């Protein structure tokens, strides 16, 4: 069974070598101590109440030995860990920068060409990426196990990490710092593309996708957005209550708001709740949803409304 994730960045292999190094030293120490414990416990088990035992109070040489050897070993481990860490914290000059904002509970990515995505980070194979991060609210942590990278996102300051993806594929992105009710749903994907595919994505994926989605009826496009834009982290479609109200049976029904009034969930209410979620808060839920103004287009919003209508 594998006990380490796939290696998909250029220093994943180096980090794993450090992990293996520490593991082997630990295993040797552990086996020595276990053998000592078990062997002594069996060999010197009490045979009678009158067993004679020697009066040994210590041994300076042995004690020096097991002070000095562990000291040397941990210093080697420290230096090795530091050397790899130093490279992990030194991004190359030509790294492509992507801005990341974490908010409860989604990831927003902004690229240098003006594109922006939610919960999906698009990068190019073998091209170093520097991720510049900040948080809109509480602390989050950007963690991609396959790349062996992790860094907290904090409000009021920028943090960064960098990596060079080496494998084309889709890799899991987790939030690793506890950030509230939706913490375990704050998941994303890193999509590593070949240079050609990345080029296409950068230049005109939107048109391509436009063509692809043009064929989709609005409710199916809405379903696609529901999954891709992170709505599913907080809104269920099966009637269960997550961080936000369920979408099942929402459309056309009366909703009680925090100010005591009620409102019918029609097109305009849902549109406003997506673009300015704090305007009319549903009773029993906190003001935690990020505003999607400028993130979702009018067509996207219309598609999501069409999707909600199908959830009876």
């Amino acid at each position, binding site marked *: 069974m594998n006990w380490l*994730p796939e290696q998909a960045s250029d220093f994943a292999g180096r980090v794993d070598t450090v992990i293996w190094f*520490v593991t082997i030293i630990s295993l040797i120490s552990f086996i020595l101590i276990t053998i000592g414990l078990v062997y002594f416990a069996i060999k*010197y088990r009490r045979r009678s109440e009158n067993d004679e035992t020697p009066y040994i*109070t210590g041994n300076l040489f042995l004690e020096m030995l097991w002070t000095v050897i562990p000291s040397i070993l941990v210093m080697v481990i420290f230096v090795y860990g530091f050397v790899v*860490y130093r490279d992990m914290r030194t991004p190359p000059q030509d790294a492509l920068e992507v801005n990341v904002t974490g908010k409860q509970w989604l990831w927003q990515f902004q690229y240098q060409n003006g594109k922006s995505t939610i919960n999906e980070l698009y990068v190019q194979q073998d091209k170093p990426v520097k991720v510049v991060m900040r948080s809109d609210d*509480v*602390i989050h942590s950007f963690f991609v196990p396959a790349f062996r990278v992790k*860094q907290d996102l904090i409000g009021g300051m920028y943090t960064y990490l960098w990596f060079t993806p080496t494998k084309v594929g889709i890799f899991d992105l*987790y939030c690793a710092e506890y950030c509230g009710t939706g913490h375990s749903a704050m998941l994303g994907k890193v999509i590593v593309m070949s240079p050609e595919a990345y080029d296409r994505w950068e230049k005109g994926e939107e048109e391509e996708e436009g063509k692809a989605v043009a064929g989709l009826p609005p409710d199916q496009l809405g379903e696609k957005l529901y999954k891709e834009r992170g709505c599913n982290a907080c809104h269920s479609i099966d009637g269960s209550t997550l961080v936000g109200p369920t979408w099942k049976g929402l459309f056309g029904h009366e909703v009680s708001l925090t100010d005591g009034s009620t409102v019918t969930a029609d097109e305009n209410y849902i549109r406003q709740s997506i673009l300015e979620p704090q305007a009319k808060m549903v009773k029993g839920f906190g003001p935690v949803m990020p505003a999607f103004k400028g993130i979702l287009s009018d067509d996207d919003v219309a598609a999501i409304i069409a999707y909600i209508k199908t959830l009876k």
Partner: protein
Amino acid sequence: MANHTIAETLYVPYLDEKGILSWLLSTDHKRIGIMYLISISTSFLIAGISSLLMRLELIAPGKTIVDAHQYNVLFTFHGTVMVFFFIVPGLAASLGNFLIPLMIGARDVAFPKLNLGSYWLYLLGATILLISLLKPADTGWTFYTPYSIKTGTDVILLTTGIFILGMSSILTGLNFIVTIHKLRAPGMTWHRLNLFVWASYATAILQLLATPVVGITLLLLIMERVFGIGFFDPAKGGDPILFQNFFWFYSHPAVYIMILPAFGVISEIIPVFSRKPIFGYKAMAYSLLAIALISFLVWAHHMFVSGMSEVAATIFSFLTMLVAIPTAIKVFNWTATLYKGSIQLHSAMLYALSLIFLFTIGGLTGVFLGSLAVDVHLHDTYFVVAHMHYVMIGGTVMGFFGALHFWYPKMFGKMFNEKVAKVAWALIFIGFNVTFFPQFILGTLGMPRRYADYPPEFHSLHELSTIGSLILGIGVFIMTVNLLRGLTNGEKAPENPYNSVSLEWQVPSPPPHENFEKIPVVTDYPYVYGKKNTQEG
């Protein structure tokens, strides 16, 4: 004792007086120790049940028994109760109170009334915690800002409760330091002290110096929540990393407040059941102090990926590695004590040997987390959860259970059923490893901690872990029932069932009020086992 016959005629065991007030108003260190023991054991069992509920939720992906918010409340409750109500006051307050005066040959602690006051503060803190459960907090036991400022749950009451517990802890530490300095019996020099007393002394220093910092930090957090003063919230110009620095400045030394008494405990158990002097007494005593000292200088290893500077991270990684050295000395010296001994696998000894085995795993996995490049990958994953439980259960709780079985005859004057105790030990040992070993693998694979739900690829390891937790739960249940049955059905305990030479075994079981008919005169350290003329090695 010269006047043994007089002692027997006047002998009134400390347990004899009945009635709840005779306990709550008692200034006898042994009664206060027993009250702490009951309180921390209750906290342990309640927090243990909350962890079983968490494990049940995690038996399969998707919602099983609780939703995400309830899960977050559960792990917050589990963490705060285990840390602040069980394991920090834990062995130090319960065993420390009961044993320190007996071991140093004193009639009580230096300030008996203050000692009772500490216990009342503990009760007050526990009451406030219970009230906070009306709207239970969901911050985790670490209360990281700004989440702990923004959440709508009741953080203020909970942190107030912990603040009061902190005062209890400080006063206990102060009391023990003065007691150990001033109340030692004639001839009881520092190098004749039990290692448990050394451990309690090192612990007390940590309690006295580190606890005020967490008290102040929680006070700042409360001020920020109540008055909106921006200490930690970046939206108000505060610094969230400052909170982490303050918090870990206490909470890392606190890890040693939790573990050092357990080190002391097994340094008592192993020589008795090996009939050998402890190997390297002075190294054992000074390594306790060394660990306590270094523990003040390593707090930021909890924060390598928090956004602090790389230079600071490097320095803290280096200092963290230093802790491994005195710890390694202890593990090797315990093992060497067994050499050429006459080893009796009493239940207390089984727990002591388990501690060496499990704590070695806990300690070595700590080296992984101290290494910078490795920590970046493993930080905030299940690897940390497993590491911490190998230290806290594998270390402290094994020491605690070992101590319960070892000093039970002295505390209660009764014997428990040794066979049942061994069965319970086996279930606890197996259950613990099945629960937590898979979590190391979950962590290296990248499963983040504090997740109410998880992707399907982690399912089988989580399932295994939950099965282990049930075995562990059954083991603890059997152990508890066995120890409680011993109180009513157990045979009467002799004064010194294991032929220990330590002072606490030279008084009747259970000891009388004020412990000693006549203050003893001490002539040697408490590990004189074996034939002196065969000294070798």
